[in-house]
């Protein structure tokens, strides 16, 4: 490895430490309330990272609850059979396999049709659970093995580990091997194909990885409190959340979904604190709308824009480049 590669590696590791540090700090402080908030944030962030990986190839999903739920159910049902490690791996592989299938059949779908197809998928898979009580526990739910012996701080540490893993996966797909190719596929698939990129294969790869990471989020979630019904994991909430988190945080980055998850949850808790009752949900909805109008590129995109603008004013040639564009 050359020096530049070494530098990048150190930078990355530093980034992961920076991301994990607040979570670890909360876990070590054993602050019961913040631990639960942090767990919720970490799960959202993992799911949002999964969604973002897929969206980098131009596939806007509204059906990630399907993989979230499958990950939760898969790991919970397979752990008693295969043990915790193999059970989780098998659960995630199941998510990946289903994602490959869904990715393959939705390849030809464009824009809104793709989005509706993913939504349809998540709605029909939920019903699959309801009607197979013998296999999946049906609507009365399952009682998955509880993570980390049910100690919330330990659970948080474990989920933080999963978040770092998801961030690392996200970074692999933001690396030189995939990022340019993915963006090219999203922006102009013809140009990508004309550059020798196997467009179909990469789109399905993104789907598989995204499905597995979403499954990881679901597995973490299902392992928290010991009792899960389909309504907890296969609901529209989990279809919409990754979209909201990622867009508010900033797309096409690893930091964006993490920042978005923190921001969204804090927004909710703050609104809950100051508004309370039912009204806080109104504030929440209103703020989402304001964000979309005011910061269409998300928090990370907004911050980058500010930085770039400042740089541009410092460097005259930079200013010229902006003017030209």
């Amino acid at each position, binding site marked *: 490895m050359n020096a530049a590669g070494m530098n990048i590696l150190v930078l990355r590791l530093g980034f992961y430490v920076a991301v994990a540090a607040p979570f670890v700090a909360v876990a070590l402080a054993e602050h019961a309330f913040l631990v639960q908030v942090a767990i919720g944030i970490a799960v959202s962030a993992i799911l949002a990272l999964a969604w973002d990986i897929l969206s980098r190839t131009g596939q806007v999903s509204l059906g990630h609850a399907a993989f979230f739920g499958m990950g939760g159910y898969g790991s919970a049902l397979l752990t008693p059979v295969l043990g915790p490690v193999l059970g989780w791996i098998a659960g995630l592989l199941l998510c990946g396999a289903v994602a490959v299938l869904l990715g393959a059949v939705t390849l030809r779908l464009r824009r809104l*049709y793709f989005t509706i197809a993913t939504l*349809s998928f998540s709605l029909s898979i939920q019903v699959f659970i309801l009607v197979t009580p013998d296999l999946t526990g049906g609507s009365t739910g399952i009682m998955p093995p509880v993570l980390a012996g049910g100690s919330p701080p330990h659970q948080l540490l474990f989920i933080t580990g999963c978040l770092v893993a998801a961030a690392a996966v996200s970074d692999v797909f933001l690396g030189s091997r995939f990022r340019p190719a993915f963006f090219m596929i999203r922006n102009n698939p013809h140009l990508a194909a004309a550059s020798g990129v196997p467009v179909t294969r990469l789109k399905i790869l993104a789907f598989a990885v995204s499905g597995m990471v979403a499954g990881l989020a679901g597995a973490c979630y299902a392992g928290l409190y010991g009792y899960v019904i389909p309504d907890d994991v296969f609901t529209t909430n989990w279809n919409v959340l990754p*979209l909201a988190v990622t867009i508010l945080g900033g797309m096409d980055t690893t930091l964006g979904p993490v920042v978005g998850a923190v921001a969204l949850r804090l927004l909710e808790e703050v609104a809950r604190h100051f508004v309370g009752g039912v009204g806080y949900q*109104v504030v929440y909805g209103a703020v989402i709308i304001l964000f979309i109008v005011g910061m269409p590129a998300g928090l990370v995109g907004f911050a980058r824009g500010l930085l770039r603008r400042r740089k541009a004013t410092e460097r005259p040639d930079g200013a010229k480049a902006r003017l030209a564009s």
Partner: protein
Amino acid sequence: MTTAAVLQAVILSLTVAALYAAVAAGLTLTVGVTRIINFAHGEFVMLGAFLTYGLHTRWGVSPWLGMAASGVALGLLSALVYRLFLARVLKQDEHNQLLATLGLSILLLNIAVILWSPDPRVMQAPALLPPLRLGPVTVPGNNVAVALVGLLLFLAMLWIKNHTRYGTQMRFASDDPELALHAGINVDRVFELSFVIGGAAAGVSGGLVALVLYVQPSVGVDLVIRAFAIIALGGLGNIPGALMGAAILALVEGLVSTFVPQGGSWGFGVAFLLLLLVLIVRPSGLFGKQVQA
């Protein structure tokens, strides 16, 4: 199963289809012109339902009139929403548009919860029309009214789009927005108009919801998802296609629920599985224009 039973199931499913179709009618027009999937359409329907319910319960206003009033009110609200923020969001990416309308949906739903509590309530109105006897099947009067108004809404959308000058402008604007500008059409205004008409249709269909379903802040959530399925099934923006889509969705759900054991659970999932399969085979819906590969 007897022929009569099948006939009964089919006819009753078709009256449900009319309700779905009514909810989808406005959405298919808006989507066809602006390409925006408006998640808040379900909440527009809900608001229409509350308005019709409130007018009838408090002042005894006839649901016929209530529906019309809801249409006007929701049309105005749509204009407000469009001008305040949707016009800006139109220029953004599709995922941002999705999130924007989702935010609006959360906002409206929770405002309704605050104003009216989450409890379901029922409009006790005498049947608007006499029941219709079709052979062995009796269709309740209010369902007849829903079928009638639903169909009328669809015809109205079709008529607006195909036989009015605004409709022509909408078709021009969705076909080729830039060329429409050259033809002297204020495309932004046309988009707004299509959104307003979609909202008005949502208001009217909300009146229908009050007529045959219960009124509840969350009543629009399931309905709007079905409406998406319907317009995707029929091909985005294809109005007659959406009518067929509504019929197919309701028939699949209804027949599976009636004739398959445990079908009440299967029906919904099967309908969406079918939609997924249709999209796999025909990527632009059953009646949509197929795109070049």
